[in-house]
């Protein structure tokens, strides 16, 4: 056993001292992992050893844990004991399975009770008093409960989940530990720093007096002797156990593409007034419904490079858009899957078609917003004029370039937009054809944010100059089409064969990673088996490292 101790790198200067420190920590109720971490061990591999193995190495035979003498550790509140056991890991497995997430690797986040900060400090002061030489200046060199949990359980949980453990992953398993006495154990801080903590007793902080940040700061500001007066050093054995809430989440996935709209009776977003639907369907619903079915997010948001009115068609290459999928449950899809999804969206309605559908990174979504500022748009408008237009009119209009407009917020949006006079540019303008009944088509390219309808009819003279004023006759707009939204993003996608794919039943696909594993956590026998296997591998790896 003694030679095995060489695998550790500890603060202590001799084996005897290690034994001594271990004994003291054991006497105050510390668990074996807390003993090891408070000895200064920082090597993650060391924590892969089982509790029994560690106890064999560090504690005399009579002190070892038996089923009868376990109580929650004052250094970790049991988080490195009970909550590292296979039974708890199986609870996580059940929760992940229940939530039905699809993932290839995972990360863990632990939210620990705030009073653990006080306890850790108290434990350090205790060690400093007993073994000053060894512990002086080493406070920040101790492994945290959080890290030790991950080092102890990360790989074990990975085996159970059939997944890979990563420090950073899109899929997060969040464990929130609740400890009933946490506030009680911090209460002395309220007397010591009333100004800092009393303020927190307000609604805006959710009545939370003690937070990680303010307790951490208060504790590191206090002198060791002051702390010793206020709180028990070493920390006492907890009288209640922690409980743990487990929740899973997946980072948002972004789908980009371009949409075309061929209807003049379809709004971009659901059109509701006082909860009553004014118009059936919307671009948003037609695009998002099939995407949601496939990715199963808990929420989603469509944003696009500007928007067109209900009665305006969107033609050409379409309008760039992004759908943000919050907490998607299914994410592993191929290019073919996306091509099939695009096809499915396009089969929903003839009115809305999408193209260039692709998954993009969060970073790339900024490109859509950046493009919003300096993009231009090209329109075709069917217009009417009070009088017959002549070739001279056409010449006059076509000669105009770079018209600067002073555009007051149009009356039709004044109820929901700030009132202002905005400067906008018409970059080019030309009459394409003269039609019977005083009608003509106008093609124009404008700066983003220009209200084209108002430019044609003038909006009671509130957009100036306007078409009526240029032609010195009343003008009006009958129909409008957006021909191009001039943004180079997202990249064009060469159409590929979507083939016959299994996304039709995305649900099965989504649970694949976890369904393929045996339903082992319910069966006690099998659980034990897993446990044994785990130990075997651990011993093996220990030998290799040793």
């Amino acid at each position, binding site marked *: 056993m003694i030679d095995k101790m060489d695998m550790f790198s500890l603060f202590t200067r001799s084996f005897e001292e290690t034994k001594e420190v271990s004994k003291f920590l054991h006497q105050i109720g510390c668990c074996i992992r807390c003993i090891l971490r408070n000895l200064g061990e920082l090597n993650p591999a060391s924590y892969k050893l089982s509790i029994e193995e560690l106890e064999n190495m560090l504690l005399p035979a009579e002190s070892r844990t038996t089923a009868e003498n376990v109580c929650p550790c004052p250094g970790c509140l049991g988080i490195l004991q009970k909550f590292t056991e296979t039974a708890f890991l199986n609870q996580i497995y059940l929760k992940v399975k229940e939530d039905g997430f699809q993932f290839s690797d995972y990360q863990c986040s632990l939210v620990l009770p705030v009073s653990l900060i006080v306890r850790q400090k108290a434990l350090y002061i205790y060690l400093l008093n007993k073994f000053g030489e060894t512990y002086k200046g080493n406070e920040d060199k101790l492994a945290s409960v959080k890290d030790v949990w991950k080092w102890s359980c990360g790989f074990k949980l990975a085996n159970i989940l059939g997944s890979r453990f990563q420090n950073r992953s899109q899929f997060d398993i969040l464990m929130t530990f609740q400890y009933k006495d946490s506030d009680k154990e911090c209460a002395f801080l309220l007397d010591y720093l009333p100004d800092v903590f009393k303020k927190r007793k307000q609604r805006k902080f959710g009545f939370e007096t003690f937070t990680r940040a303010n307790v951490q700061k208060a504790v590191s500001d206090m002198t060791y002797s002051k702390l010793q007066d206020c709180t028990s050093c070493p920390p006492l054995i907890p009288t209640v156990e922690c409980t743990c809430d487990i929740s899973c989440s997946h980072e948002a996935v972004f789908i980009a593409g371009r949409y075309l709209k061929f209807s003049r009776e379809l709004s971009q977003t659901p059109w509701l007034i006082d909860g009553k639907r004014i118009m059936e369907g919307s671009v948003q619903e037609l695009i998002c419904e099939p995407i949601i079915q496939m990715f199963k997010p808990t929420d989603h948001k469509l944003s696009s490079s500007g928007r067109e009115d209900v009665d305006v068609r969107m033609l050409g290459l379409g309008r760039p858009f992004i759908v943000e999928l919050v907490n998607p449950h299914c994410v592993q899809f191929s290019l073919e899957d996306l091509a099939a999804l695009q096809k499915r969206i396009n089969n929903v309605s003839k009115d809305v078609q999408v193209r260039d559908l692709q998954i993009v990174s969060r970073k790339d979504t900024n490109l859509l917003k950046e493009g919003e500022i300096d993009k231009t748009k090209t329109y075709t408008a069917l217009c009417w004029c009070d009088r017959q237009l002549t070739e001279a009119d056409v010449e006059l209009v076509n000669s105009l370039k770079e018209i600067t407009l002073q555009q007051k917020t149009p*009356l*039709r949006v004044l109820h929901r937009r700030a*009132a202002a006079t905005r400067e906008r540019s018409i970059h080019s303008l030309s009459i394409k054809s003269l039609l019977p009944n005083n009608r003509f088509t106008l093609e124009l390219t404008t700066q983003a944010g220009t209200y084209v309808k108002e430019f044609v009819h003038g909006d*009671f003279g509130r957009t100036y100059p306007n078409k009526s004023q240029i032609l010195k006759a009343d003008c*009006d707009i*009958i129909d409008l089409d957006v021909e191009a939204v001039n943004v180079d993003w997202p990249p064009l996608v060469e159409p590929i064969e979507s083939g016959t794919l299994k996304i039709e039943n995305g649900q099965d696909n989504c649970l694949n990673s976890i369904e393929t594993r045996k339903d082992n956590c319910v069966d006690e026998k099998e659980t034990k088996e897993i446990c044994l296997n785990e130990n075997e591998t651990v011993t093996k790896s220990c030998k290799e490292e040793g």
Partner: protein
Amino acid sequence: MIESDFESPLPHRSNHNDKPPSVIERYFKKRYKTDNKYEDQLVLTHSNRVCVVCVANSHPLIEQKKSVTSVSFGEEGWNRLDNKFSGKSKRGAQWLDCKAPLCEVTCSDGTKYTLVCCVKGQLIEVNENLQKTPQLLIDKPHGEGYLAVILPGLKWFEHEMKQLKSEEDYQNELEKRLHNS
């Protein structure tokens, strides 16, 4: 550049009437404030509650084709040009009652008329062009010669609309006047 995968644009919505419905016909409802001195006014209300206040055709200004020399948005005790506000909620805008004066119009024959708000609400804008070109009031009373934009409060909107006359009631009123004279 890849060509669009989709069919060429559909034909435009056909509309063979000689004159398409105007902006007012498409987006606004006409309501009137009548007055025993026949100084009638027109309120154009958009479906979004925005009200454009105008002079009605039956007002002596239009009826008698007056020549307007000045339009003033401020007199002793009130000034509609001093109206600073900000944001979507138009915080700080003047709240005006339906009888509050909006502007005073002076004609070349020496006559003066006070035009009022007609609806209770926030003053969003007065037509400052009328100061430079007062004749717009007569030439385009329901277009560029509008007087002001008012946004009635959500709570009072229905009430404010009820105290105005519909197009039909207004026409009846005009008939009645014809009989009486």
